[in-house]
């Protein structure tokens, strides 16, 4: 009965090994049942073994509310994936990674030849964002004091300039020098002819009612814009019988609390290139000017409707590559999921933009921060070298074991082969991307696998020295070796876990392969080796 159980386990091991062998075998012949399934899993080779490029992009999520960041990053990932697919790389891999409070996009392009064009192509991806104005905010006391101080200084400066004007200074010269009204400064402060109703009341009151032709106002005139020094140049009555005045002014601007509180930045709305479905050139039905039409997906259409609804009679800005491209005012809620960017395009510009947008637009700005290229020849050499190193390492270990433990060493050799076959098929099935570090981890886990066997063999020797029968020595040897195997592999697994958690790329792959190796090696040591030993030692 006991022998039967041992034989059953043995057959189980043979079957598992057989299945693993078929999975590992590159091309299974078609007379094998289920050969299609066996041939399907492929070994994934890392960039260092097959050549290629890894690009790391930093995303700028500072303007995006916390809860929407993941969405935006995923959107960026999808957009870049679409872009890269156009490039025809066999198995591009685009991952997102969180580092502290920053998000990164890791783009892996295996086997790519023209890295430069790929970088350019990704770099050209437009960043499209729809933004709305933020609500006015309450100013802090510090800001209020700062504004007051600024305004006081402005008044002093204005008074100084006024004094110069009144004491015979050249008004237009002073305007050119000091005026902060960019529109009239270069004309010596000349505002041209205007009638009542076109200027702020305080200003009009002075020019129309107080000043005579050629006179300069003896006191500063304060309006919402700041302090004005006003000179009335001329007056007339126009053809329609309205009084008109021609005046010049020097403006020293002030800051108002109201303006500053409204002067907040454009706010993230969640509507970005992520929801863009297509883009094409259209023509404005009235002016016949070229425009760029955007069509959103369902999510984008919904968002756009919400945004336009809450911003009626307010501007909504369309940002392209971080610059406001167009800031139209919303007239009504737009529910069809279509938007138009109109503006100062000529036909070619409109075409270029719509083509760029069609290929996908990013929801967040990205920046290339790290690049790693492995030439195909280096990958090939590394692959060959590490394979040779792996095989030699494997053989050396087995020879050493046979030399030291004779027949039992041969059993370990067989058990190690079972171990290698199982591990390889796991690599294929999971799948684990095999890198140079991964192969090193594999070779190292061979050492670990041997260790469990050595522990057991030494233990069996000890038990035999105590005068136990062979089969009992084997039984007790396994039992007593277990705590050491468990604890030593336990600590290694802890390290693998830490490597996997904290590592990036290379280190991660190493942790994963070594961890898997340790688990499988424990299995082979306590089932396969034990079974073999029991088979050759009859009771």
């Amino acid at each position: 009965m006991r022998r039967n159980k041992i034989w059953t386990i043995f057959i189980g091991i043979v079957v598992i090994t057989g299945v693993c062998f078929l999975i590992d075998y590159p091309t299974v012949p078609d007379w094998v049942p289920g050969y299609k399934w066996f041939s399907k899993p492929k070994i994934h080779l890392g960039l260092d073994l097959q050549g290629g490029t890894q690009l790391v992009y930093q995303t700028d999520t500072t303007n995006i509310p916390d809860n929407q960041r993941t969405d935006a990053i995923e959107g960026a990932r999808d957009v870049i994936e679409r872009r890269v697919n156009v490039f025809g790389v066999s198995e591009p891999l685009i991952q997102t990674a969180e580092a502290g409070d920053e998000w990164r996009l890791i783009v892996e392009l295996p086997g790519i030849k023209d890295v430069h064009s790929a970088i350019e192509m990704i770099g050209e991806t437009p960043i499209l964002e729809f933004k709305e104005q933020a609500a006015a905010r309450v100013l802090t006391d510090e800001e209020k004091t700062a504004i007051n101080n600024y305004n006081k200084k402005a008044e002093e400066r204005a008074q100084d300039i006024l004094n110069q004007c009144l004491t015979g200074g050249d008004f237009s010269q002073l305007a050119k020098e000091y005026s902060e009204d960019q529109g009239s400064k270069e004309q010596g402060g000349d505002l041209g002819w205007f009638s009542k109703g076109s200027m702020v009341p305080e200003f009009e009151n002075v020019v129309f009612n107080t000043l005579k032709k050629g006179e300069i106002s003896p006191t500063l005139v304060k309006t919402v814009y700041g302090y004005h020094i006003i000179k009335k140049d001329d007056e007339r009555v126009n053809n329609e019988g309205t009084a008109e005045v021609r005046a010049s002014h020097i403006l020293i601007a002030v800051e108002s609390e109201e303006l500053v509180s409204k002067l907040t930045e454009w706010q993230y709305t969640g509507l970005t290139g992520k929801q863009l479905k297509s883009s094409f050139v259209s023509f404005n039905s009235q002016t016949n000017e070229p425009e760029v039409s955007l069509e959103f997906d369902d999510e984008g259409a919904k968002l756009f409707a919400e945004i336009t609804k809450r911003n009626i009679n307010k501007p909504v800005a369309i940002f392209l590559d971080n610059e406001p491209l167009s800031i139209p005012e919303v007239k009504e809620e737009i529910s069809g999921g279509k938007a138009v960017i109109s503006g100062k395009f000529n036909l070619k510009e409109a075409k270029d933009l719509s083509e760029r947008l069609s290929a996908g637009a990013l929801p967040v700005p990205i920046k290339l921060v790290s690049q790693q290229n492995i030439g195909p020849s280096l990958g090939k050499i590394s692959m060959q070298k590490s394979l040779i190193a792996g095989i030699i390492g494997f053989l050396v270990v087995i020879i050493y074991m046979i030399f030291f433990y004779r027949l039992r060493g041969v059993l370990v050799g067989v058990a190690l082969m079972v171990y290698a076959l199982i591990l390889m098929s796991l690599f294929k099935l999971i799948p684990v991307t095999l890198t140079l570090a991964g192969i090193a981890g594999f070779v190292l886990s061979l050492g670990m696998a041997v260790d469990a066997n050595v522990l057991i063999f030494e233990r069996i020797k000890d038990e035999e020295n105590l005068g136990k029968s062979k089969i009992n020595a084997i039984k007790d040897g396994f039992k007593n070796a277990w705590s050491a195997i468990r604890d030593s592999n336990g600590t290694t697994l802890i390290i693998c876990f830490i490597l996997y958690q904290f590592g990036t790329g290379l280190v991660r792959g190493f942790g994963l392969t070594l961890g898997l190796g340790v688990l499988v090696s424990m299995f082979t040591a306590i089932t396969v080796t034990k079974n073999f030993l029991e088979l050759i030692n009859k009771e």
Partner: protein
Amino acid sequence: MFNYTSHRNIFFSVSIALVTVSILSLIFFGLKPGIDFIGGTMMEIGYETGTPTNQEIKDKLAQFNLKELSVQSSSEKSFILRFSIESSSEISNEGGVDETVHQNILESLGNPEEIRFESIGPTIGRELAKNAKWSVFLSLIAITVYIVLAFKKLGKIFGHGESWRYGAGALIALAHDVIIMLGFFSLLGHFKGVEINSAFITAILIVMGYSVNDTIVVYDRIRENLLTYRFKELNQVISVSVTETIVRSLNTSLTTIFALLAIYLFGGESIRNFSLAMIVGIGIGTWSSIVIASNFLLLGRKKEVGK
């Protein structure tokens, strides 16, 4: 039978000497961090024909104002260039990748084959360095805690502090291994220009796993023998336990070192330093497990427990 405990002062002296040299080297020479950790650019190029000299390459690159440029031939026809790009450059304010400069450099060198190119921004570098330190630190803590828990049973029989003593012993042995590895690579860095990178940190972590592996096997045997022969003196129990486990420890370490030697000799340039670090580390780790960690258990004992 060789007594492993009566010679403990010699063992401790050897280890203390090694650790002292390592610490001195770390203080005076420091470690040479690779671009993984500080950011920068590494480029390996190969020429089919008309291989230039190191100086010719340097001259051609003079126009780019590269910082800390070094040119090193990696074989007859290939070179490894290391440099960092001016961090105030407008295109690349991260100091890392500057694709335009990259392409210009290749062009000015006569468009050789680019075997390898790596460019890492300093932010990412700093982050990797931080992660590396954390992972070594965390591993030390996790392993110590694991051992304290695994040897809890001893605490029940021999008094509360006993399992902590095992934890501390393993921690000391691990710190010993890590410091000597760092010291060794600090010397290599000073005299041979060997840089430490992520792979080196991985090697440290794995050596820690390996060393603690050995330590646990020895401790496991001490635990078992203590429970079996309760009336023997501790130093005898330890010596017997080490004798019983040393064949296994050496066998395991030697097989692993053989496997690593294969990688060192045939695995190619890129993982050579990694396998060297592992070989050194596993050698040191085996030493510390066999004679340091075991004898640590005797330190500061009152006479009654272990003569």
